[in-house]
C-alpha cells in the first residue's frame, strides 16, 4: 500500500541557496506528522513545495500514488490537499461563515459552467456553521474578518481547510501568535483531526505542543532532513538536540 503523501528527493533553490535540499518523506493514512526545525531551516518552503506554491527544481511529490509535482495549487486542493497558512489570509469581503462555505462548495468550482448553474448555498452555509462550531468560533459566524481578533482567524484557517474535506491537511504554524492556553487548546483540536482517512502535517515552532501531540516527527535543518521517526526517538537524537541548541544560539 503506497503512502498518502510521498516526497521524493525534492530540492528548492532560491538563487544559489538551497532552501530545501534533497528531502524525502512519507505520510501514511490517519497520521499526524510534526515538522520541526530551527528558524530558517526551510520548513515553510518544503510545505510550499507540497502545496504547489513553489516549484521544486528536482524531485517528485505524489498524493495517493499520483504524481502532482506539476499541478497547480487549486488542482491539488481539488484532489484532496488543504492548507492552513501561517499568515492568515481570510477573504476580507466575506463573513467568516461565507469564507468557510466557499471552501465547502469546492465541488461546484471544478468548472466555471458547473459554478454558473448552481445557485443554492444553504447546504454549504449549514456545513460552514457546523465547522465553525466544531473549532469553537460559532459566535462569530456572521462577523467579517476585520471585526474579530487574530485567534479567531487562526481557527478560521483551520475550519476553512477542513471544509475542503482534505485527505491531507497541512497546517503552517497554527499556534503562532496564540498565548499558551490558546495554543494548548488549538493543539488538542489538531490532534483530533488525523482520523477518518485524513492525515495532518503540522509545521510548528512551539516544540512543547508538537512533542506533546505528534506521534511522529520530521526534523529539518539547513534544508536537509535531519531525522524522521517516532517522536521519542527523534527527540533523544543528539544531532537534533545540537541542531536546536545551535539554531537557538544563532
Amino acid at each position: 500500500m503506497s503512502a498518502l503523501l510521498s516526497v521524493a528527493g525534492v530540492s528548492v533553490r532560491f538563487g544559489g541557496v538551497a532552501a530545501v535540499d534533497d528531502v524525502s518523506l512519507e505520510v501514511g493514512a490517519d497520521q499526524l506528522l510534526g515538522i520541526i526545525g530551527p528558524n530558517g531551516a526551510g520548513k515553510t518552503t518544503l510545505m510550499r513545495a507540497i502545496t504547489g506554491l513553489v516549484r521544486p527544481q528536482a524531485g517528485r511529490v505524489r498524493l495517493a500514488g499520483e504524481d502532482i509535482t506539476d499541478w497547480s495549487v487549486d488542482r491539488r486542493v481539488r484532489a484532496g490537499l488543504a492548507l492552513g497558512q501561517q499568515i492568515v489570509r481570510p477573504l476580507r469581503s466575506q463573513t467568516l461563515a461565507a469564507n468557510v462555505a466557499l471552501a465547502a462548495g469546492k465541488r461546484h468550482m471544478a468548472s466555471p459552467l458547473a459554478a454558473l448553474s448552481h445557485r443554492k448555498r444553504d447546504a454549504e452555509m449549514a456545513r460552514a456553521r457546523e465547522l465553525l462550531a466544531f473549532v469553537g468560533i460559532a459566535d462569530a459566524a456572521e462577523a467579517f474578518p476585520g471585526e474579530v481578533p487574530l485567534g479567531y482567524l487562526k481557527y478560521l484557517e483551520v475550519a476553512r481547510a477542513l471544509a475542503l474535506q482534505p485527505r491531507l491537511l497541512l497546517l503552517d504554524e497554527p499556534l503562532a501568535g496564540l498565548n499558551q492556553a490558546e495554543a494548548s487548546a488549538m493543539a488538542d483540536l489538531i490532534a483530533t483531526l488525523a482520523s477518518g482517512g485524513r492525515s495532518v502535517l503540522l509545521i510548528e515552532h512551539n516544540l512543547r505542543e508538537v512533542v506533546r501531540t505528534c506521534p511522529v516527527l520530521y526534523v529539518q535543518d539547513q534544508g536537509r532532513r535531519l531525522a524522521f521517526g517516532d517522536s521519542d526517538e527523534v527527540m533523544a537524537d543528539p544531532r537534533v538536540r545540537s541542531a536546536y541548541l545551535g539554531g537557538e544560539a544563532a
Partner: protein
Amino acid sequence: MAYEIIIATTMAIAVLFALSLNVITGFCGQISLGHAAFYGIGAYTGALLTKAGLPLIAALAPAALSAGAIGFVVGLASLRVRHDFLAITTMGVSFLFVGVVRKQDVLGGEIGISGIPAAEFGRPGLLALAVGCAVVFALLALHIRRSWMGFAFESIADDEDTARILGIDVPRFKLWAFVIGTAGAGVAGALYAHNVRYIGPDSFGFVESVTVLAMVIVGGIGSVWGVVLAAAVLSVLPLWFQVIDDYKLLMYGALLFLAMRFMPDGVAGQVARWWAASRRGR
C-alpha cells in the same frame, strides 16, 4: 419624438456596455482600461455584416463572438499580469485596436465606415432591441452574482492567492469573466453602430474606455442596479450639458473627480451606507 428615441437607445446601449465591463471589473476585480476596443470590434463586425446585406438581428451573434474571441485572447495575455500592470496592459489594448484600425483599408482606415444601414425594424424597433439586450444582460449579471460563479469571482476580486488555496481554478474563471464581458461589449458595439450609423477609430479610443469605467465606478463597482443607473445618467449627461456647451467636458471631469473624492464607493455604496445608518437610527 425621434430625438427622444435616439437618446433612449443611447442610454440602453450604454447600460449594456457598462454592465459588460462590470462583470470583468466589478465582479471579478480585473481592472480594464481598454473595454472600448471590444465595443469597437462588435461595432465594426456588425457594420460590415449589415453593409453586406445581413439583417442586424443576425449580426448580433457574430459581433458577440468576434469580441468574445479577441476577449479570450486578451484575457489569456492578461493572466500574466496583475493589478496596475493589468490596467496598463488593457490600456495598451485600447491603443493597439485604434492603431490597427487606422491602418486597415477594409475597416475604412482613418475615415471610418459611413452609410451603415438603418435597422430593418426602424428606430423604435432598435430601441426595443437595445432595451431587450440590456435587460437580458442585466438578468444574466444578477444570475452570475448569485451563482457559485459569482461567489468564485468575488473571492478572486478579494484575494487571488487565497481563492486558489480554496480550490478555485482562478485563470479559468478569469477567462470566463473576460469572455462574458467582452461578448456583451460586442453586442453593445453592434447596436451602437446602427444607432449612430457612422463609426470611426476615434469612437473606440482610450477616452471611451475611461468613460465606461467611470460609469462602473461611479455606479458602485460590482452593483448591478448602481451601474445601470450611473450608465443611464452619465451617457446622457453630456447631452443635457449641451445648453452650457462650452463647459460640458469641464463639468464631466469635475463630476468624476468629485464623485470619487466624496463618494468613493459609488452610488450603490453610498446608498448602502445611508440605509445602514437609517436602520441604526431607528
